[in-house]
């Protein structure tokens, strides 16, 4: 009945949705962000620990939401670990383009491997009301890196 939805809900997504990685509170974080998706009621909190050279040493999150938002956050924490803040922001921009258009801009360029991993979420672009679920984590990451203390919203 739902076979054609396997593009959106690939096994990787269902797996990360059920068992999100890095789903924990990070004590002594250097950066912290909160994200909220008012329409869905999705909420998350994200912590970043920075290495002395400014790279993202550890990234963790906690929150509640649908399979897409949890899987996206889980995959994100794995993908941005070890990256510089500039790289993390670059991934964030590219991921948001991927989620809205379904294609991966500049995927031949640097960070291609990372983007290829995130490609599993590209299917969400066909579901306009669900794009926000996929991008919430990345909005939250940006807010954390900005360290503005403001709540990110994917609205």
């Amino acid at each position, binding site marked *: *009945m739902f076979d*054609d*939805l396997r593009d959106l809900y690939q096994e990787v997504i269902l797996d990360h*949705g*059920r068992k999100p990685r890095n789903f924990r509170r990070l004590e002594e974080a250097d950066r912290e962000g909160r994200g909220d998706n008012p329409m869905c*009621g999705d909420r998350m909190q994200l912590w970043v620990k920075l290495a002395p050279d400014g790279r993202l040493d550890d990234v963790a999150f906690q929150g509640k939401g649908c*399979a*897409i938002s949890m899987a996206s956050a889980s995959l994100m924490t794995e993908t941005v670990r070890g990256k510089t803040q500039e790289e993390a922001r670059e991934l964030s921009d590219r991921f948001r383009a991927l989620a809205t258009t379904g294609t991966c801009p500049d995927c031949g360029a640097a960070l291609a491997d990372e983007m290829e991993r995130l490609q599993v979420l590209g299917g969400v672009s066909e*579901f306009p009301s669900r794009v926000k679920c996929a991008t919430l984590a990345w909005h939250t990451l940006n807010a954390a890196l900005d360290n503005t203390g403001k709540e990110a919203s994917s609205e």
Partner: protein
Amino acid sequence: MDGGTPVFDVARIRQDFPILSQKVRGKDLVFLDSGASAQKPRQVIGAMTRMMETAYANVHRGAYHLSEAATEAYEAARRAVAGFLNAATEREVVFTNSSTAAINLVAHSYGRSVLRPGQAVLVSEMEHHANFVPWLMLRDSHGIELRVCRVTDDGELDLADLEAKLADGKVGLAAITHMSNVLGTVTPAERIARIVHAHSAKLLLDGSQAAVHRRVDVQALDCDFYVFTGHKLYGPTGIGVLWARLDLLERMPPFLGGGDMIEEVTLDSYRPAPVPAKFEAGTPPIIEAVGLHAAIDYVQNIGMAAIEAHERRLVDHAMRKLSAVEGLRLLGNAQDRGGVFAVSLPNAHSHDLATLLDRVGIAVRSGRHCAEPLHTRFEIESTCRASFGLYTTEGEIDYLAEALDKAREFFG
């Protein structure tokens, strides 16, 4: 025909709703979100189009033919609403833009003039945000206490708690839903009115859901305020109704100021118009009133009793079918319930579930349905809600149950 029960031909009724013949993603549309907003029959669409093509002008202003025709159509809609609610007079019918606007009107006008700081307003845990947030705002701005009546595990209004919260006599107004938009619970409005009045408080009933499914008689219910909205009653968006007892409306100050709501304006004063114009500042939703009138004629031609009987069959059928879906949690189990079913499946978030259902043509609402306190009360993050209209069929419910069962397997 047996025992005077009118014939209800759902197949013929569906033909009145052009949108229902649509395909969604190649599948027949199964529209189960009428509780959010109902679809419109040709009769409503036609009446609004005809109004715009033949009889449109502003109302209550021009001494020319079209304005007089528009005014007559607008006031005829008011009489139709009065008949629909069995109001004592059409002067008790105030047109607003929505149920939300109607409740806000009461909160601002009645709430700030008749209710005094230190008095309380009593709502319930199963209120829609529209019957909750205006009272929180009144609490914060006017020093009113807000009390919340509990809902039982079955989703009934806890009448003992209602009594208890009225006992000290501080409650000036109880604002309670006539039918929950999440649990489907139809509240015992007459009993509530007796209890509330015994404690010298007034009763506002939020009929946004109930007025669509049951015959409403405000005099029999013995409430003081009743609100409902056009778009859930197969009418257009942008029009709602506040019914209130004439003596209350006459005591209440205007809410919005502007044209049409005044009798006389000078450079330093104004005198408000009589009820109901006093509460209808600005150009009203004229075309929408005509659409609402057509919607009322439409449901009355079918007969509210016939609609209610059809929906009772649907509710019984849905209870059987949905309770057979393994692992499905159904919120609320009230004795008297209408066609609203909020459900959840383990391992499936409501939005994921709604996306799956959409893929096979089923439109349901997911989230918290503007009733976050109620979801908190039932300790559930969010639900998918299927809500029925007079065009809903048993076959659609079977299809929903089958899809939910498959969705359960999908998410494992």
